[in-house]
């Protein structure tokens, strides 16, 4: 390919170093808006049952997240209608302050909803005018039945993931100090941490369900999925669980470390359990804190045995082939790279891993590098251009130029079905490709690759191409998460447009 189109081609470790030294721009362009800190904080808070959030700000902030997260919960999981309250800040509040209004709102919400917890989440407006939210909350504690918690998550106050980290750290405040009795009671229990949003789809074998099955398979129990529909009671006793296992290490790290430091609850750090190597690491680390090592080994053996024949056949077919992995979904792309290299013996190339992610996803990158995996990364110019880089002509042309150097019969593309490489494509977001975690997931992914190769002769749908690249379309911008998109994509934050219901972006 044309070297002028290449921004970076090398190992992840080298990219990471360049980002740390400020030698590669890590700024996200103006067309690439992610949910703000308020939204990501709300996403975690939406996963706590019995909690009502008062968004201290104008109504739009509450309305936006409510449509995106709460309506989605109801639509896909049959959960009842959930409210998100707002103080509906107006011009008068902006000029004279909104503390009085907030005080009134806390009282009203306590009386109207009788929630276990009232969280006051600050929006930009409240943050800029300097309402003393902490003081209002402190003064109201004795006047209401609910537990109160202020969360300072103004949209401007940090990058999007800072909202996840902030709330994950802060909800540790709800937790009770472990007692010997409770520790004993939960000595065979696990918290899955780093999950987000409410109840998951009920009819599909999702990844969280697979992890739950694996945990119970070794003889343990799940105390709570934090914060995926967990109750205040589950949160309170969470520190007494034997171990915290991260669903997504990147997001689970903040709460895991906080609980470790405050309550000495051990943390099982591992990358997303894609593939057998990562799954076994995940399970062994969990088991050792519960004295279930033998059971875990026996269970892992039986799990492997159940897939062995098909899996080994698949693996021998895949060894030596190349996987080009779309890097837009940073943590997932690194986890998939880990799986295809460690488990399938393939060569992984992470394509268009935005340098911004090198900064934003430090935890996962550190882990990967520590384990000795340092995948190849290719970043082309289109990734850094103003526009929608996952599905735009510029990156498409660059990818095709790069693929020109690879054997199409030996290469697969892990990415969105909205891209059109001339090599077989594996879209792990597709609902039928779940679960992706664990042994069953490893086999499923391997089979997906083989199916793609087998049907490579079909080519891609011309209808799909016309949908993504209509004639005469110019540069378009990256779409933000909208209620419509959230409804289509129930359980994870997504940024790309036009993905349909049931697909998941594990950001």
């Amino acid at each position, binding site marked *: 390919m044309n070297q002028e189109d290449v921004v970076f081609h090398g190992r992840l470790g080298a990219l990471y170093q360049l980002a740390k030294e400020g030698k590669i721009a890590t700024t*996200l362009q*103006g067309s690439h*808006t992610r*949910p*703000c*800190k308020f939204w990501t904080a709300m996403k975690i808070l939406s996963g706590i049952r019995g909690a009502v959030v008062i968004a201290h*700000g*104008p*109504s*739009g*902030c*509450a*309305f*936006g997240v*409510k*449509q995106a997260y709460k*309506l989605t919960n109801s639509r896909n999981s049959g959960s*009842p*209608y959930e*409210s*998100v309250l*707002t*103080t509906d*800040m*107006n*011009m008068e509040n*902006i000029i004279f302050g909104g503390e009085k*209004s907030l005080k*009134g*709102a806390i009282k009203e919400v306590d*009386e*109207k909803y009788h929630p276990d917890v009232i969280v006051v989440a600050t929006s*930009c*407006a409240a943050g*800029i005018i300097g309402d003393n939210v902490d003081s209002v909350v402190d003064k109201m504690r004795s006047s209401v039945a609910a537990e109160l918690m202020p969360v300072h998550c103004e*949209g*401007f*106050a*940090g990058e999007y993931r800072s909202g996840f980290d902030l709330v994950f750290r802060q909800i540790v405040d709800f937790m009770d100090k472990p007692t010997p009795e409770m520790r004993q009671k939960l000595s065979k229990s696990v918290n899955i941490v780093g999950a987000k949003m409410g109840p998951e789809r009920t009819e599909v074998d999702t990844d969280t369900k697979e992890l739950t099955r694996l945990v119970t398979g070794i003889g343990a129990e799940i105390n709570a999925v934090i914060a995926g529909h967990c109750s205040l009671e589950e949160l309170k006793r969470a520190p007494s669980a034997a171990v915290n296992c991260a669903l997504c290490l990147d997001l689970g790290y903040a709460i895991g470390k906080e609980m470790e430091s405050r309550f000495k609850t051990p943390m099982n750090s591992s990358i997303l359990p894609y593939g057998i190597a990562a799954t076994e690491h995940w399970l062994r680390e969990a088991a050792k804190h519960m004295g279930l090592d033998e059971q875990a080994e026996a269970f892992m053996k039986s799990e492997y045995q159940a897939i062995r024949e098909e899996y080994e056949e698949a693996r021998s077919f895949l060894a030596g082939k190349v996987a080009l992995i779309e890097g837009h979904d940073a943590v997932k792309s690194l986890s998939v790279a880990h799986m295809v290299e460690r488990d399938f013996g393939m060569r992984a190339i992470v394509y268009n891993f935005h340098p911004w992610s090198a900064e934003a996803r430090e935890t996962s990158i550190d882990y990967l590098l520590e384990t000795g995996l340092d995948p190849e990364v290719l970043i082309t110019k289109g990734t850094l*251009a*103003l*526009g*929608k880089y996952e*599905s735009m002509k510029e990156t498409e042309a660059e990818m095709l130029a790069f693929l020109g150097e690879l054997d199409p019969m030996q290469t697969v593309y892990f990415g969105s079905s909205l891209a059109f490489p001339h090599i077989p494509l594996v879209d792990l977001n597709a609902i039928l490709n779940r679960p992706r975690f664990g042994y069953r997931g490893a086999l499923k992914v391997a089979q997906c690759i083989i199916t793609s190769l087998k049907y490579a002769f079909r080519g891609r749908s011309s209808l799909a191409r016309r949908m993504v*690249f*209509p004639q005469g*379309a*110019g*540069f*378009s*911008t990256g779409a*933000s*998460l*909208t*209620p*419509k*998109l959230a*409804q289509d994509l129930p359980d994870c934050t997504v940024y790309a*447009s*036009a993905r349909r219901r049931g697909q998941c972006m594990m950001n």
Partner: protein
Amino acid sequence: MHDELKFDNCAHSSDPLVGCALEGVASVFAGIRGATVVIHSPQGCAATVAAAFDQHEVDFTKRKIACTRLFESDIVMGATRKLEDLIRQSDAKFGNPVLFVVGTCAADIIGEDLDGICRNLQPEIKGKLIPVTAGGFRGDAYAGIEMGLEALLPFVKKSETKIPNSVNLIAPHASVNPTWWADLDWIQGLLEGFGIKVVSRIVRDTTLAELDKAGEASANILLSHDAGYGFAKKFERLHGVPLILSDIPLPVGLGNTSRWLKALASHFNAEGLADFMITNGEEKVADILRRRALMMIPRYRNCRVAVSGDATFAISSLRMLFQELEMIPEAVLVRSKSKEARALLAKECADLGISPKIVFGADGYKIQQVLKDIPVDAVLGSAWETYMAKEEGIRIAFDAFTPTNRDVYVDRAYFGYDGMVNLLEIIGNDWERALRSRDIQWDLYEERRTVLPTKETERVGTAKIA
């Protein structure tokens, strides 16, 4: 004759079903063809703007949106330079004829001088820069629509001469019909049938050329009871174009469609044609229902219903529900709260002789309370009301309004005669789904067969096995 409900514990907190002013403003700009929107805000506000583009179904290949992504240092130090750079970049990259530069809460409060920035930068920018300060705290989405529409006024050229028999159609998008443009298309087709020219649609894929000529129209028609009144009045003052038909409900159901057509015809001296359209339209509806839904009215007769949506449909559908379907509207829950909508609803209730409970500015809590306290058999609303109804044990919810859980691929008008059939199709299907037996307790039949082995129970048992 109506009874507007009052609620305790709602003075300082609400559970909003309507977005903020920014969403309203953006929903106007999203309807302008070839518009770039540069948002001066933290990145979360881009989701609100994107939701407005969703409302127009502008697909991802046509969205030209950029955001300055303000962070803490920008709030403290100001971000003029950042905005200027993004405007330059967007102008060069997207090449659109107009760039709306929108300041949201953060930019609004810290006092970013959008007017000054745009004025200074304009000479080097190819597109026309339109600065709009749209802090979400300036009102709800309906207030935002008024703000956005007002920002379009400078595009309208003064014209002393008017095109006879011509109109502008205003605020069609302030509507809870999930495919509201079908209503707009129905109205436009109808007007063409009357020989009335549509000068501009403000807004739906509107060109700047359309806006330029909007002052030449001889009348304005508002297609919403929720927003656009302020704009229409200002338009009338500035351009001498009168607002017509604003004192009657929009054409939903037979009665209101007939009324609306007659009023239109009276304004444009085309009564004969209106009578012809009404006769044909009503016959069409009756014919379809006779063949496909003969039991529709017997089925719904005296069904106590709550209607929850915007003023446009909550008010306009009352006559159809009460007089044509023989339902009893027990509650009317309206998300907006304009004085014009209040007056219109009062007039409509008086005319129909009904006195439902009324809520303006309805939020989630108020709707829940009404559904809890006022006994109804069914709710006509959106997905929100469907979930609330389920919780309150109301079995029948007609999911017709935005946001809906219905996947709608083919555009469906709710206005006019076909529109009425479209609405009835939703009502009919949701009624069926609600009452269809899905949870037959076969074990009870089994038990009965064992205990009472009559011929009848034997048949039931056989059916189960089959």
